[in-house]
């Protein structure tokens, strides 16, 4: 389902060229649960950004669900992001002036879905994540765990095929972090591909497949069967 070939990403930092990704080949099938691990600066976030079409590789090809995304223009890429990819971030990235409900509604609004249809789907989704009683609250009135649930609700409302999570427990205490992980694993069990970047080895162990990145290369790609 996901096929990266010969991906290169070079950043210009001052005079220096930094190779964030060097000849990365990577593939994932539908429904996989993958943890990308590695030290800071190893390129794991860059890889996730490229998977999420938030960044363009300098070279190489990326195929998602049969679409050669590296050939698409900005508008078409935006469309792929909208319908196929859900993001969960470390800092939640909720819009502070919008209520939980409005934050979750945002992808539907951007897609131009009708108001009535939107309301229905938002209520359903928020209920499903156990924050049905928090719809009118703004992010600063929610706990960290609740915020991340809102963010996950937002990431899943368009029924994406893949969820990309970047240190999604990094800003949460252990128990709410666990809740969030369980929610994501639940989604994974329903067949959504889950790819997460994490520093946390505990979290890494839970994934069925672990990728270790060092210096812009995939150094280790292990299936973890006992999980």
């Amino acid at each position, binding site marked *: 389902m996901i096929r990266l070939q010969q991906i290169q990403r070079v950043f210009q930092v001052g005079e220096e060229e930094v190779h964030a990704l060097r000849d990365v080949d990577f593939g994932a099938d539908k429904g996989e649960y993958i943890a990308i691990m590695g030290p800071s600066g190893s390129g794991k*976030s860059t890889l996730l950004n490229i998977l999420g079409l938030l960044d363009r590789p300098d070279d190489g090809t990326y195929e998602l669900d049969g679409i050669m995304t590296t050939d698409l223009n900005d508008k078409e890429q*935006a*469309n792929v992001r909208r319908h196929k990819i859900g993001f969960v971030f470390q*800092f939640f990235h909720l*819009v502070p002036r919008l209520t939980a409900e409005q934050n979750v509604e*945002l992808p539907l609004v*951007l897609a131009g879905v009708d108001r009535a249809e939107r309301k229905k789907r938002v209520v359903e989704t928020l209920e499903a994540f156990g924050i049905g009683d928090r719809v009118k609250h703004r992010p600063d009135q929610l706990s960290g765990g609740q915020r991340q649930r809102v963010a996950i609700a937002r990431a899943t409302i368009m029924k994406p095929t893949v969820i990309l999570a970047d240190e999604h427990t990094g800003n949460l205490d252990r128990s709410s972090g666990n809740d969030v992980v369980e929610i994501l694993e639940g989604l994974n069990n329903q067949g959504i591909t889950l790819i997460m970047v994490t520093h946390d080895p505990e979290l890494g162990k839970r994934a069925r497949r672990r990728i270790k990145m060092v210096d812009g290369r995939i150094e280790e790609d292990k299936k973890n069967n006992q999980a």
Partner: protein
Amino acid sequence: MQTSDIAAFSIQAATASRGRTILTLLAMAIGVSSVILLISLGDSGRRYVMDQFASLGTNLLIVIPGRSETTGGPPPLLGETPRDLTLDDAIALKQSTAIRRVAPIIAGSAPISFKQLEREMIVLGSSADLFEARRLTMGQGSFLPPGDLDRGGNFCVIGSKGKTELFGNNQALGKWLRIGDRRFRVIGVLADTGVSLGEDLGEVVIIPVATAQSLFNRVSLFRIVVEAVNEDAVGRAKKAILSIIKARHEGEDDITVITQDAVLATFDKIFRTLTLTVGGIAAISLVVAGIMIMNIMLVAISNRRSEIGLLKALGAARSQIMGLFLTESALLSTAGAFFGFILAFSAMKLLAGFFPEYNLALVPWSPFIASGLALGTGIIFGVFPARRAAMLEPALSLSRR
């Protein structure tokens, strides 16, 4: 994205940061209201002057010595000086059936004194016809009596302001005042009509034209005010004046006849230019408001970097982001223009209350100017920030908190 959603999103974004929104609205409101106000004031001024002219009667012609237009032909070998307009020229004009009144005018200034008070005033030498031709009204007494133009007399009519300055609240009629080295009896005081045609008739003294000739020791007239029998006769009167004077001046076309129409057209043109000029100057404040909108949008964008990155991650294309931010600045400036319009409207009402005689009013197309200017500034100054927002790298803007 649906239009109502774009609007709702932008309104929410604008109202979320109240301080910056209020400041922007204020700047925009001031800019728009000053443009509307200045244009309207200019326009009101124009209408005021036009009305003044119209009230003078549109069948007036003014004859001045000298020619302001050339009619072609070789230049004269010997230097040519225009002949003076004389009293006899004025008398001759009365032959024409198209002309009802002829009022010759000699103007000069002279010290006017009564007892120990002395003022420098404009002295007009004219005739009884001036009264009707210029639609003057008397406050007290009577105007110069009709009679032969070349008969003078030691009497004068004084403007209301001049009367107050020389006589205070005392009776002026029948008093003798001194103009230069001659004595004149006051037979009338003009009504206080304020400034008309740019001439303040409050501070003039009018004496018989023949007396003025000897007072200033000058035969030539300053001009002749001619009233045609009616508006349709103005053209005929003009032709008659030209031919009569030409015959009297040995075949030379050496006068200029100004009709009210020409004067009106000139004033109209001057006032329109003036209005546009002040409007243009006011537009500078609009540019300032526009730059303020741009500045504030740029700040907003750098504050909302992560939001922009998020929108992109959620599937917003560059064009959509650009649309959102352009809508926001257009909304800000339109709302500002709306307040500006209200501001201008109430300021004008207030001014009109203070100066009812000027008939002040907003120009009828001012709402269109306001909205046009607002959208223009909002969009022109919104494009750059919106483009910047659209071009943000989502990966970079999301990596920061």
